[in-house]
């Protein structure tokens, strides 16, 4: 068993950390304030190859797999959770197309997503279909005359949805069959019948745009169906499982940074004649934060390793996401507490991190849904 990163992974970590510090951190507070997607920073991610992580080089990708994604996303999350979310969610689309697409689809769409500068999005959630994918109401009806599907419905809470050039969406092709009647499609921005609803005003990760997508007689060529007809649920689950590891990476990064800030502040903040770091109460906080965070990291890395080794990782993905997210909230809360009044102020990053961290317990499956997944896997063994 070898816990060390490869030389290339270590360099990737260094690059991601440098990028986060030099490009993401300077705008993190600003995009939180203005609620604006950092267009220039996304372009820089493309240029350095972050948007091609996990995609083969023949499709314009930069190779690597889930562990590389975890490394980059958690470094980003240290300095800007919104940007970490953007990268993490963007990668779902190219990975899903790579896993399930035809050669033609891969040739057509992957280079646009990996190096072409287009953002990817993944649209499953609907007003009445959150954790329960069977509740999807969007329908796709086949039109034999034109060999197209006509799609109608609404998707909500779609990260990057209004900015994305290429989206993977889900619609019912056999509505009566529930999840077994769902299919996946690749759609493009600008297709007639595809419009955007409102942009959500969120508590955290405000630099990542969350949009409502509206399909009104959206006509999609049948060749844009991803995978088999009625095979969408399997695709959605595989994509979500992978996405959960990405969320764990976000939670991991924000927890690491919170510890670093807490340690620094505790060393500098003098009360009653000595730095508060000298108080055992603070020391024990730090010990708890560090231990739980290290445990969370190892579980996340393990899930990523399973994914990269081609093994089943559904249960471990749910575990690492559930655990890392809960840990992030725990750690950021204590770090803010250690900062006292300063931590509560908008000028200090912890206030933002506290709001940002919360999302990791909610999106790509709530903690409660993960517990269902985990308990089923454990009890049905």
């Amino acid at each position: 068993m070898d816990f060390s990163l490869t030389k290339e992974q270590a360099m990737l970590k260094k690059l991601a950390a440098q990028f986060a510090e030099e490009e993401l951190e300077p705008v993190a507070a600003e995009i939180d304030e203005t609620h604006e997607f950092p267009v220039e920073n996304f372009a820089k991610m493309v240029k350095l190859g972050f948007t091609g992580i996990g995609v083969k080089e023949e499709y314009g990708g930069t190779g690597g797999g889930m562990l590389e994604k975890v490394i980059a996303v958690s470094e980003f999350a240290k300095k800007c959770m919104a940007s970490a979310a953007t990268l993490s969610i963007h990668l779902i689309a190219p990975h899903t197309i790579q896993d399930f697409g035809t050669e033609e689809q891969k040739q057509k769409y992957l280079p646009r997503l990996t190096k072409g500068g287009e953002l990817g999005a993944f649209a499953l959630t609907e007003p009445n279909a959150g954790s329960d994918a069977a509740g999807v109401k969007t329908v796709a009806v086949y039109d034999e005359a034109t060999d197209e599907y006509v799609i109608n419905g609404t998707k909500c809470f779609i990260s990057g949805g209004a900015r994305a050039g290429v989206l993977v969406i889900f619609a019912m092709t056999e509505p009566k069959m529930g999840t077994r009647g769902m299919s996946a499609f690749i759609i493009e921005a600008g297709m007639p019948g595809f419009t955007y609803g409102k942009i959500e005003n969120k508590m955290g990760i405000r630099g990542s745009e969350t949009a409502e997508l509206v399909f009104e007689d959206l006509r999609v060529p049948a060749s844009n169906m991803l995978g088999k007809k009625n095979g969408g649920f399997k695709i959605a689950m595989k994509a979500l499982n992978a996405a959960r590891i990405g969320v764990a990476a976000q939670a991991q990064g924000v927890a690491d940074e919170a510890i670093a800030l807490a340690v620094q502040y505790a060393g500098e903040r003098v009360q009653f004649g000595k730095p508060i770091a000298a108080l055992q109460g603070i020391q024990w906080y730090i010990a708890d934060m560090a231990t739980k965070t290290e445990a969370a990291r190892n579980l996340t890395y393990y899930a990523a390793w399973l994914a990269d080794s081609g093994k089943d990782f559904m249960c471990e993905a749910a575990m690492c996401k559930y655990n890392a997210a809960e840990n992030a909230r725990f750690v950021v809360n204590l770090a803010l507490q250690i900062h006292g009044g300063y931590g509560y102020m908008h000028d200090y990053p912890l206030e933002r991190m506290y709001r940002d961290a919360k999302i990791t317990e909610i999106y790509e499956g709530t903690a409660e849904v993960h517990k269902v997944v985990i308990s089923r896997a454990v009890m049905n063994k």
Partner: protein
Amino acid sequence: MRIYVCVKQVPDTSGVVAVNEDGTLNRASMQTIINPDDLVAMEQALMIKDATGCQVTAVTMGPPPAEGMLRELLAMGADDAILISAREFGGSDTFATSQIIAAAITYTGLNDEDMIFCGRQAIDGDTAQVGPQIAEKLNLPQISYAAEIKKEGNEVTVKRMLEDGYMMIKQQTPCLVTCISDQDSHPRMMSIAGINAAYKKPYTVLDFETLKDEPLIELDKIGLKGSPTNIFVSFTPPLKGIGVMLEGNDKKTTDKLASMLLEKHVI
């Protein structure tokens, strides 16, 4: 056409600097970084590579772990790297170092259209000497403090900074240029594609055996023993006392300030 970029791995003096009890630097406790001015030199070379497609070679002298730095430079876009490493070379001062690097460059080959770029100075010693001394050993013209470098054919035009302005200098290759940072030449980062390629690019280690017979190497003038300069004493300055608050805020106070500054030679 080839540009050699001479780089150095240095302790990060902007971070925590630990000093041993005997007054020497505790290098083990410090982070190492690529010397900032050398990164600027690399960026200048890569900009010329972007425009001309020339070959960029990173060269360093140092212990084997310096490989990590060279791989990072390959990930930034350098084409190949040379590590000059031998116990016999350890402890060299600038005179000895420049002799060895010059020999390594002659050994590797320097053609008429080639150039050598260095950073202005390294943050550990701040000497700014190795660049000009490599140029002297190779009998090449040098341009130091270069902020902008343009190359057309075998002619380079350089903006050389002075404290109170600048000079525009024209120069035929081969030549050596030492680079300073200017606001437009922010060193690029590595790229992921570059990282994937970094361990596949040509990487050469030149040891003592390889270089010892080079005409530029004078065996009695390399390493700690051969270096012309020696450290006589190294020491830490007395700890900075806690600050003083000056009384009042009138002319008497500022006069007191001025006399303190005179005493400290800051004015």
